[in-house]
């Protein structure tokens, strides 16, 4: 009798092992497999959803083509940039930066505190679920709405912007912080429980040091986002360079506008590069 691969395989296995369906074995061993039905139905479905979305969003290549002329005209008006009010721009950018720093620090500290209550390996369920809900609600509200809310509460100026940024950070990064803490290796946590450490000590030694690189990395990303976000908040009068930007637009002061934009790009680039450098170092 010739030995088929099948009998060789079953000889090696323990007698208790359930037999593998020969058809299934053949399927597993074949180099090219016929895709499963759910994959074949999934692709047309995804294409339909995509087409439906293009249609709903009124996406139109022809219109885009026609528009390039206007776009070019707009861009040409931005040149040459007018740096005559460079001092004002720098002062406002510094204010924007200061807002972003305070907003990030407050946001990160609050997010860390909330994250402890929203990490399933730290918090009990009665704390975990409400914390997650609160963060989901905060995240679904646009930062601009918070800015309007705080402008009406504390008046125009950077303070309102900082409050909006802090609250916005809580929604965006609180959940990410919580997930960073949930993803730590269980081993050191078990070891800390095994030495008789308190709950606080288990978090302090077993969880936070392991999550630290991710926490710092996400905080830097938050800071980058806040610098960019702070330029928007000015639109509703919440401080920073945004107000100057909209004013220049409304006054058709294109030279000044383009100087502002160039300065924002320079600042954001420097900060993004710097933070990328730090993140590479720590992870």
């Amino acid at each position, binding site marked *: 009798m010739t030995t088929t691969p099948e009998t060789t395989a079953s000889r090696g296995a*323990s*007698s*208790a*092992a359930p037999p593998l369906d020969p058809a299934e074995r053949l399927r597993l061993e074949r180099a090219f497999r016929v895709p499963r039905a759910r994959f074949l139905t999934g692709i047309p479905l995804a294409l339909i959803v995509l087409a439906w979305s293009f249609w709903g969003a009124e996406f139109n290549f022809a219109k885009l083509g026609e528009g390039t002329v206007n776009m070019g005209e707009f861009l040409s008006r931005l040149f040459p940039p007018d740096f005559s009010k460079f001092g004002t721009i720098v002062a406002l950018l510094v204010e924007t930066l200061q807002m972003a720093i305070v907003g990030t620090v407050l946001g990160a500290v609050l997010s860390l505190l909330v994250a402890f209550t929203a990490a399933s390996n730290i918090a009990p369920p009665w704390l975990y679920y409400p914390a997650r809900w609160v963060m989901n609600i905060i995240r679904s509200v646009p930062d601009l709405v918070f800015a309007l809310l705080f402008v009406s509460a504390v008046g125009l100026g950077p303070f309102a912007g900082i409050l909006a940024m802090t609250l916005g950070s809580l929604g965006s990064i609180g959940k990410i912080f919580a997930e960073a803490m949930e993803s730590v*290796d269980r*081993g*050191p946590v*078990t*070891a*800390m*429980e*095994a*030495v*008789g*450490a*308190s709950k606080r*000590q288990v978090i*302090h*030694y*077993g969880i936070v*040091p*392991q999550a*630290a*690189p991710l926490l710092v990395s996400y905080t830097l990303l938050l800071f980058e986002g806040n610098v960019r976000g702070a330029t928007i908040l000015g639109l509703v009068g919440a401080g920073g360079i945004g107000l100057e930007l909209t004013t220049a637009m409304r006054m058709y002061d294109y030279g000044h506008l383009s100087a502002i934009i160039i300065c924002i790009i320079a600042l954001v680039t420097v900060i993004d590069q710097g933070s990328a450098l730090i993140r590479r170092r720590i992870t």
Partner: protein
Amino acid sequence: MNATISAAALTPEARLLQALPLISVRNLTVAYGDQPVLDGVDLDVRPGEMVALLGASGSGKSTLMKSLTGFAPITAGTARVAGYDATNLRRGDLRKLRSDVGQVFQQFNLIPRLSVLTNVLTGALHNAGPGNLVGGFSSAHRRLAMHYLDRVGIAHKAKEPARSLSGGQQQRVAIARALMQQPRVILADEPVASLDPKLAGSVLGLLREIATEDGIPVLVSLHVLPLALDYSDRILGLRQGRMLISAPTHGLDAQKLSSLYDDEGEHVDHHP
């Protein structure tokens, strides 16, 4: 604080107390759902001895270890560990019990980014005092931690992050952490399963030395027979949740222990 209690300093009564088993388990049953993992297990571990726990995968070695420190639920029977009743612990007592039992794990379980010294210091967390709220350890604790690092031969790496050490070195640090607890018993669950044979021997030698010289009994689970025969005073053999063998090592050989591994169909691993 009393760093090490030397045997000579003990009163006769204390010596007598020391001779009593520090782990005493009777008719222990552990079940997840209605699937018993351990079924009527008895065992004693006395001061100064190194006891090897053998058994095939899924025989319940790990579960037995875990049940002794409240990491696995005891369904029936009694377990006295380091003076505590492990079957009936209140929350505060559970932490006290755990702080009195040094544990060594297969995967070392050090905190990878923290220094070797800090890792050893975490063994003293249960009596670190209020200063630890700001992350500090007293200089007495630091001296003691360095003493134990000297003992396991890793003092020169004290400042390095734990993750930069080799497996054998990490396990030595983990043993120093266990010693830092001033434990009454040490439980080592497959401590050398991730190490090469030479390192395995040196780590087990260190544990044996701790058992004989410091009088801290070590219960160690192993899956390599020759290592158990070389380094233990007594061997316990589990098979399918029952204690099949309990005898001094010198009367045993690989032949007699092979019954533990007889193939009786596939065992299902219980790792909840």
